């Protein structure tokens, strides 16, 4: 520990900073780190209300005069602060959720309230940067797609790292831990159209999470230079079905120009094939409802990027969402501001699409009829919404979701799946 670390611990910088430092030291014990290292940025997930314990915690920090010491962004909270009328749950919970969000802002963090901070170009870390990020999809994206280094910082430890500017030198902060030990190879029976379909990425993500668990895996067999939107969908699903904090996609992610690079030129512990039958089975498992009835379409989990909003607007063109269906897109307030400036927001609203920011429709009651069936293009939404908000789910591609929203019933396109 440095002399500043010891000062933090002994309360020289206040009781709040001392509490934060005790958590960082506890983390160092659990991870058996030899030393602490500096971080340049933090992304904090602790601002989502999970009951009074989350408020009791931040109160302890506030009472102890804690402040963040590195540039810090905030993850989603329980309410859309810009469109509070969208909240359909217990107003008491909304008040507590809002209070928590404001308490984190008061610690000096930037009120981004997005689960996709990597879409904000002015705060996203560069290759090799040491950071402390919370939120499972953001962690996976940070390590895998940006090549910045973070461990899985859960609630409490994320803000403790932001306050102290320190983390244990362990896990994915170290280059050797970023090596793929598992290779997941797409089998020859996958149709070419499926390998290049948006819809395969969340499904592949669920498979990745199940097969890899907490190991680092490399996916081999996709075309090079996959888009950030696809890699986002892949990582979010993988971090839902498994504890995936990092993955490689050969030819697309920065530490995997080749399979050999992903493996850091060592032999993998195992090589496994992913066959079409497994992908179809996982796709079907993501739907808990059948038939063609639907009450809502939920897009933007993780938060929609500007390019996704543009695609939705283009797919809708001059058509409108069916009056019996609610079409809700979640995004970040900064992306929404940009979409507004570019006229994309106006086109979406004109078509009957509703936008929510600062939160997400599977963690907080936003949908008019949450019981569903709700159609989604997100593996993560499909995975969590049945338990969190009691929704029945129909999983499909973004295009299927948009076409279904317009038709007022589920419209399928099985062509990428080879017809079944």
């Amino acid at each position, binding site marked *: 520990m440095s002399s500043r670390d010891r000062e933090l611990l002994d309360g020289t910088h206040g009781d709040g900073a001392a509490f934060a430092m005790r958590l960082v030291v*506890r*983390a160092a014990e*659990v991870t058996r780190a030899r030393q602490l290292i500096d971080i340049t940025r933090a992304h904090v997930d602790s601002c989502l209300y999970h009951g009074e*314990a*989350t408020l009791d*915690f931040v109160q*302890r920090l506030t009472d102890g005069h804690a402040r963040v010491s590195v540039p810090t962004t905030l993850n989603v909270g329980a309410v859309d602060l810009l469109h509070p009328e969208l909240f359909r749950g217990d107003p008491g919970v909304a008040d507590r959720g809002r209070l928590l969000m404001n308490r984190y802002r008061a610690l000096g963090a930037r009120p981004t309230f997005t689960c996709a901070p990597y879409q904000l170009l002015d705060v996203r870390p560069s290759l090799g940067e040491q950071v402390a990020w919370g939120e499972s999809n953001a962690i996976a994206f940070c390590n895998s797609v940006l090549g910045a280094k973070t461990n*899985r910082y859960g609630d*409490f430890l994320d803000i403790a790292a932001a306050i102290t500017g320190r983390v244990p030198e362990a896990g994915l902060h170290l280059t050797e831990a970023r090596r793929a030990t598992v290779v997941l190879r797409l089998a020859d029976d996958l149709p070419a159209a499926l390998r290049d379909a948006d819809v395969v990425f969340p499904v592949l993500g669920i498979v990745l999470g199940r097969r890899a668990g907490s190991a680092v895996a490399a996916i081999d067999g996709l075309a090079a230079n996959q888009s950030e939107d696809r890699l986002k969908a892949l990582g979010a699903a993988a971090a839902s079905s498994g*504890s995936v904090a990092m993955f490689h996609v050969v030819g697309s992610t920065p530490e995997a120009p080749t399979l050999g690079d992903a493996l850091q030129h060592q032999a993998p512990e195992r090589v496994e094939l992913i066959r079409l039958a497994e992908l179809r089975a996982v796709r079907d498992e993501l739907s808990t409802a059948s038939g063609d009835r639907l009450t809502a379409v939920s897009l933007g989990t993780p938060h929609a990027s500007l390019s996704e909003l543009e695609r939705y607007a283009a797919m809708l063109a001059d058509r409108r969402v069916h009056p019996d269906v609610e079409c809700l897109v979640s995004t970040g307030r900064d992306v929404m501001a940009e979409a507004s400036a570019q006229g994309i927001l106006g086109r979406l609203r004109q078509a009957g699409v509703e936008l929510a920011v600062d939160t997400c429709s599977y963690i907080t009651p936003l949908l008019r009829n949450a019981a569903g069936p709700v159609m989604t293009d997100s593996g993560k939404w499909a995975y969590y919404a049945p338990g969190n908000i009691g929704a029945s789910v129909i999983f499909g591609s973004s295009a299927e979701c948009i076409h279904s929203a317009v038709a007022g019933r589920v419209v399928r396109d099985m062509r990428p799946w080879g017809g079944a």
Partner: protein
Amino acid sequence: MTEIHARALVLAEGLSLWGGMDPSSGEIIDVHHPQLGASLTGRIVVMPSGRGSSSSASVLAETVRAKTAPAAMLLAEPDLILAIGAAVAEELYGVQVPILVLPPDELAAIPDGVMLRIGEGTVRRE
């Protein structure tokens, strides 16, 4: 460390407390989990790993506040997220939820429902 004496709940699959458990009831709500509906409250939860969301620390602290927490958790690998949740709960509410790591073969040998005694970092079967 206070001694803990409670019945084991062996989970067939890892459980993310966030999205997987309702802190107000202590029950498993993950519809994909084979033990949907089982209560974790007061049990020594045995599972290979805590998986999924980085919000599980908050949920663990909230279960301590709401008195629906597991008595302890036994894992096959260290879990930073759960360890920090337990550390915060202890600072805020003065209650310990020990999170212990056992060798995978010892963990796998624990039958569901058996009484366990945890003290000084050791686990003994009654």
